[in-house]
């Protein structure tokens, strides 16, 4: 196997046995691919819970996501597979994919994740793959498990991972502590962060920015001014008595100090007035390299929003809809949002389930 550790691929026998991909069908499929995301179940394997790979596509292109690479298959590649044994095909398809297609390094891979909180399963069958430079948005109604997914990626102890794995920068972080994950480059903006008495915002900024001096660096002060914080505000206890907008701006400022490679934003637009949303969005775009060309972007993001308002200001590449603890559908953010606006979450998810 070229892609990823060999044993890993065979560990997931389900792929072979469940006839996930009938390659003769696939050619046909490629011509008739709908303009919406597809899952493995769309390829004639209704029983599988797509435990290790997600296939989605559109525009006559299929995407195979697994382990550490993202590959795309075009019609041209498929001729290799005609008449071959399935197991051979299995080997070959990846070799082919490896050589013939663009291989992009994945930043975050979540495979077959199931999460329990206080003994109750909140998330299951979560597969989520985020590429370097990509921004994904996680949509879903209240209570669908968005925040749970967020805290699980962050590694908060209450969120017990019962199945699956989280790989970040190619390293399994499933059992790492929050601190270790953050040190690897995971960043987060909380929706309702706790107030900590006696811990000043400037103290935190110094730590996050790796400063050891008595005074906050001019660089950070400049960023603070940009986010409409004056000197006095920086000396306040973090989040203590902050307004909704101040909380969000302080979270963004702390991320600017940290400069993580992968940032999760939990409802960055909730409880914030229009003026502040634009300001926050502007900085989110900076954090996510949106000022660079798509191919040049290094930073990735996962936005959680249930209204999608922030998407008017921050462009996302892929949207996922979370329903009852499962990713019900993935695809173009604008289309999915449009669908949700028209038909609600339920309606949107229904239309994604092409059988």
């Amino acid at each position: 196997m070229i892609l990823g550790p060999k044993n890993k691929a065979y560990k997931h026998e389900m792929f072979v046995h469940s006839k996930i991909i009938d390659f003769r069908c696939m050619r046909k499929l490629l011509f008739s691919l709908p303009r919406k995301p597809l899952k493995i179940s769309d390829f004639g394997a209704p029983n599988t819970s797509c435990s290790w790979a997600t296939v989605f596509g559109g525009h006559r292109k299929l995407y195979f996501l697994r382990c550490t690479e993202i590959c795309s298959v075009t019609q041209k590649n498929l001729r290799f597979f005609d008449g071959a044994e399935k197991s051979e095909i299995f080997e070959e398809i990846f070799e082919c994919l490896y050589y013939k297609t663009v291989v992009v390094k994945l930043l975050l891979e979540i495979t077959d994740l199931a999460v329990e909180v206080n003994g109750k399963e909140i998330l299951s069958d979560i597969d989520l793959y985020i590429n370097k430079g990509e921004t994904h948005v996680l949509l879903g109604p209240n209570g669908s498990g968005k925040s749970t997914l967020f805290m699980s990626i962050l590694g908060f102890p209450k969120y017990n991972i019962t199945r699956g794995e989280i790989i970040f920068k190619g390293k399994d972080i499933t059992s790492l502590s929050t601190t270790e994950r953050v040190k690897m480059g995971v960043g987060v903006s909380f929706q309702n962060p706790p107030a900590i008495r006696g811990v000043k915002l400037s103290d935190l900024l110094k730590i996050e920015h790796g400063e050891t001096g008595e005074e906050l660096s001019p660089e950070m002060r400049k960023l603070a001014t940009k986010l409409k914080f004056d000197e006095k505000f920086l000396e306040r206890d973090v989040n203590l008595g902050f307004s909704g907008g101040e909380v969000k701006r302080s979270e963004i400022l702390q991320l600017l100090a940290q400069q993580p490679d992968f940032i999760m934003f939990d409802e960055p637009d909730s409880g914030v007035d229009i003026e502040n949303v634009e300001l926050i969005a502007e900085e989110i775009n900076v954090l996510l390299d949106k000022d660079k060309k798509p191919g040049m972007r290094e930073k990735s993001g996962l936005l959680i929003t249930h209204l999608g308002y922030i998407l008017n200001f921050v462009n996302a590449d892929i949207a996922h809809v979370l329903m009852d603890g499962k990713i019900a559908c993935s695809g173009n953010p604008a289309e999915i949002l449009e669908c949700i606006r028209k038909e609600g979450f339920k309606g949107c998810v229904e239309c994604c389930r092409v059988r």
Partner: protein
Amino acid sequence: MLQSALERAKKAQEKKALYGKDIDLEKFIREEAEEHERVDRASEVPKKVQETLLKVGVDPTEKERAGTFIQVDQSCVCTTCPSENVEIMGMSVALEKYGWLKDYMWKAVAPDTDKYTAQTAIREAEEGSSGYFIRSLPGSREVFPLQACMFIGDEKVMQTVHNVIIAEENSELHIITGCATGEDVSSALHVGVSEFYLKKGAKITFTMVHNWAEQVDVRPRTGIMVGDDSTYISNYILTSPVRSIQSYPTAYCSGKNSKVLFQSILGGQQDSLLDMGSRVILEGEGSSCEIISRVVSKDNSQIYSRGHLAGRMHDTKGHLECHGLVLSDNSMIYAVPELEGSTTELELSHEAAVGKIAEEEVLYLMSRGLTEEEAASMIVRGFLSMDITGLPQELADETKRMLDMSLKGM
């Protein structure tokens, strides 16, 4: 007066204190007052002492200080007083200078309170006075603080001091006091009797940093008489290990509209046994007070945090607040808030909470890259670093620095 104090003291020689473990006074040495050499300025005291002074906020360079008093064991080694608004001197000098001073002795603290006050009174009568006398002149307003340090330099010493602080009418006085022990002292006893008198319209802020050693027992005895329209603010910081300390300063708000604020920051480490309280007797019309304490127990420390508000006059108001964090299973915080209302038209309240560090806060800091230990210690330091109010800006900044320094070891 002093004669009657001595008689009362003699009767109380064996009287155990109400709180705290009993200490056998016979185990300690009564050193003479001339044991340590006198110097002219604080910068001339031995280097080792100077380093310790800095740790408790006493600046040997005496920059921006109205005056300095340093006592080592039983000897007054240094007094300076560049300011014309205040006086600071050894008690024995003061008693010679002012005949009326004896009328202020043992009025705010009874000599027969317990064996410690008794011992202090007896030694005072037999060996001469030790401790400092501070007085702000009427109508004066000294912005720079006076600094005083009680230092224990010799092994097995029993230091007994008797301080009298008088703020004359409409004067303002700021005092920083630090108490500390030499590094090589492994066992000693400090008994400090302090009597404060605030006349009409006066204000005193008293900021005290304790930095004792693991084998030192400390028994301060403090009484504060607060007159009409006057304000007394006490800031107390203890974060270093000590064998035992027991104190229960009492403020008598007998003046109209008098105000008292006690703020204490206690960090218990190792085998420290801390029994700290603050008591305010509200007996002047319109008087009010606040007692705030932040307590953290680590290692095997046992901390009693007491507070007592007694409302005995109409239109009085008092609030008592004690928040504690228990950080180890072998440590203990015992909060005892007491409210006593014995008249109508008063308002007394208390708020006490003893618990653990909020997990949510730890996780928040961890998600910023701090380790669990770093996060916890940052939260504890934040918890203890309350705002010190009532000080002039510069002194407030300095106190904050002192506090930050004290909290570094937590």
